[in-house]
């Protein structure tokens, strides 16, 4: 038994060392997430169940769903939620529609300038939201280039209101989110053997059929990842709706911030934050179940 015991303990020591290495690799990120994300969320959720006294602006310890009930019973707030979902869905759909062909071309190109193509896709992310919004004011503003040109051509009599509308916000979020969609799709499409597409062609499938039966199902993991990423980013967009939507256009993320800073209503702000998170999560899960079920058919 002794001659077995020695190698066994050696193995156990090795296992322990490997365990320690794994802990060292995973540890820092885990600690960071726990303290900087999980803990605040737990505290915030607890706050969202508290009461708020508007006159004195004081939070009173309680255990009440009042804040959630207030949100869902006031049409002002449900309308903001509806706007947010509508904008996010539209943005995601347009990103997928515009992103797929672009991602396909980038993934399949044999060009020496492929890396330049990829850089030009990421380029919009180099420009911050504030800079972008300022730039767009010069184009889309009432005295901007677009309106000036249209007026000069006599196509319109009065300047079009493009800035500070939902359209401006949608265009703005698309510009930010498109690179994420394209890069996610591109990496997945690159992993699909070009010969598989050719095989479908040679078996008699025209391009549309090939796309539906072969390319789409094989790219589905990328499509799912890309839509999740884009949708979550759009649901939680803060800077773009704030800067391009103007004072009257409201989405959920700016509303949360507003409740915390301007109204100092932490319980209500917390409950809005949790509603936003839950709705995002539920819609993401539902959309993906739908996508995958359709693919399975």
């Amino acid at each position: 038994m002794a001659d077995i015991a020695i190698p066994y303990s050696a193995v156990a020591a090795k296992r322990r060392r490997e365990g320690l290495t794994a802990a060292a690799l995973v540890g820092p990120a885990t600690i960071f997430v726990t303290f900087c994300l999980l803990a605040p969320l737990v505290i915030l959720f607890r706050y969202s169940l508290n009461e708020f006294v508007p006159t004195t602006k004081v939070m009173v310890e309680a255990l009440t769903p009042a804040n959630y009930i207030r949100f869902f019973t006031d049409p002002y707030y449900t309308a903001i939620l509806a706007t947010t979902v509508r904008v996010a869905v539209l943005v995601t759909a347009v990103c997928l529609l515009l992103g797929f062909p672009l991602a396909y071309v980038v993934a399949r190109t044999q060009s020496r300038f492929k890396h330049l193509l990829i850089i030009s896709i990421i380029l919009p992310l180099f420009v911050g939201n504030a800079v972008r919004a300022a730039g767009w004011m010069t184009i889309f503003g009432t005295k901007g280039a677009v309106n000036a040109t249209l007026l000069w051509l006599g196509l319109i009599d009065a300047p079009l209101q493009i800035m500070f509308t939902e359209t401006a916000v949608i265009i703005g979020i698309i510009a930010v989110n498109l690179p994420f969609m394209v890069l996610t799709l591109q990496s997945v499409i690159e992993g699909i053997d070009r010969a598989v597409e050719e095989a479908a062609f040679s078996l008699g499938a025209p391009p549309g059929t090939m796309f539906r039966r072969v390319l789409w199902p094989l790219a589905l993991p990328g499509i799912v990842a890309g839509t999740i990423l884009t949708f979550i980013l759009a649901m939680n967009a803060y800077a773009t709706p704030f800067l391009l939507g103007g004072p009257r256009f409201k989405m959920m993320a700016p509303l949360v911030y507003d409740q915390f800073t301007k109204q100092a209503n932490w319980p209500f702000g917390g409950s809005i934050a949790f509603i936003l998170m839950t709705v995002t999560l539920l819609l993401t899960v539902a959309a993906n179940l739908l996508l995958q079920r359709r693919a399975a058919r």
Partner: protein
Amino acid sequence: MADLALNGLSKHYGDFYAVRDVSLAIADGEFLVLLGPSGCGKTTTLRMVAGFIEPSAGEVRLGGQDVTLLPPWKRNAGMVFQSYALFPHMTVAQNVAFGLEMRKLGRVDIDQRVEETLALVRLDGFGGRLPRQLSGGQQQRVALARALAIRPDVLLLDEPLSNLDAKLRQEVRIEIRELQRQLGLTTVMVTHDQEEALTMADRLVVMNEGAVRQVGTQRDLYERPADRFVAGFVGRTTFLGGTVKAPGRFRSDGGLALACTGGRPGRAVLSLRPERAMVGRAALSGLDNSLPGTVEFVSYLGALIDIHVRLSPKDRLVVQIANRDGGFTPEVGQPVHVGWPASAGQIFNE
């Protein structure tokens, strides 16, 4: 099945000709192999037949019909890809059924045809598996079944065996060939492996630098290569550089006077297959050429032995002898005599 004709087919990208003026006629039921080194244009030619590449000039006729400008999905060509290109998200049966669904066959007909075709490639019972659950050899057979199921006018094979291990490759070669004969399939295969080409083809096309160098049977290519490239590419040979003094008289760069057949006076190379020369202890009588030399290298191949003999400071010859009982097997450093009849060598003028 149908016959296939390529007339003056070319493909160039700017100034670079990938394929230059290729004309071939492939008879109904014939197995033609395009053979050549990588980059010789054989794959481009095959892809033009499949419809993946549009030719710059020339035409492709399949069963008498001009298909040059038809997209691949309107040609009835079954293709087996080097990577097999199976649809990874579909089962074996769904892969094989794909082409039949595109042809709008009924469900019952499709199921029956899928079953028949899978039986043909000995994969009965594998219909429900996914491609990744199969071995390389089985995946290769699924790829073949998928191409055969559509009853193609022509079967196109793009290096179909290059991803199999050596032993399996030998078996699959014979399987594909037997299936092709049995079904009477007009087949074009691309390969860079000359042994594969020689064992499978009815006729071979040797290509280099985008052009056809020679078309013929195995024997044609080996015994009567059209040029120096074909002689070097098909089988092994030793080239001796030199000059043809007069038809039948060759003088090597090392100063050896050799008897040969034909040749125009001027710079040339003499090509000699290793197994056509003999080696002995003393001068070899009855042969047109018999020369003394020294053994520099011996390579033992089992059934055969290669002997590299130095004939002059500039001339070295490889002689291949059979490994027989009691045969003469020289050793490195040993003086020997090498001989061959004039008709064994071939002259290529430069």
